[in-house]
């Protein structure tokens, strides 16, 4: 029974997220501040930006530069570390 309840909660949460991301209609005349029209970002881009700022993901994205040498260095070091850890345990 626990599993059914857990999965029902997950389904309800997904449906709530799904409905909240649907974009709403924009107004026809833009509001003014300081004499110029204000620019609104779309609600979905705001959502993704706040989420990524909360989770601190920019640092993680810097791990995958385009450079092949960085990739090889990371793969080699992690391989050696994992091998040593696996054999000791």
């Amino acid at each position: 029974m626990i599993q059914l309840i857990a999965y029902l909660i997950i389904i309800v949460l997904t449906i709530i997220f799904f409905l909240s991301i649907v974009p709403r209609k924009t107004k026809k005349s833009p509001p003014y501040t300081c004499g110029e029209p204000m620019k609104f970002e779309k609600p979905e881009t705001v959502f993704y930006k706040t989420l990524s700022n909360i989770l601190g993901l920019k640092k993680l994205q810097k791990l995958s530069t385009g450079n092949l040498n960085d990739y090889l260095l990371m793969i080699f070091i992690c391989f050696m570390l994992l091998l040593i850890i696996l054999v000791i345990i």
Partner: protein
Amino acid sequence: MFKENIIKKVIALSILANGINVLIIIIGYRSGGIPPIATPTNLNEFFTTAVDPLPQALVLTSIVIAVSVTAFALMLCYRIFKKFKTLDIKKLSTLKG
């Protein structure tokens, strides 16, 4: 393997492949061994002291595979040079993130 020039990377890959082939041959060694060629006269010596012939068969296949990979890598380097006009690995990072 961490050099900047892509040709040097391909050379490093080729050296790695050859090193592994030598490793495979060494594994089949028996101390005081003779080459594994069996003629009808030396069958007794063949069974007792010959070096193991199976790794030598593996290495034959492996050399062929290494040659084809190196050939393909060099062809790719040529195409990269024609498109990017450089052989530097740092310029080769247009896909990132």
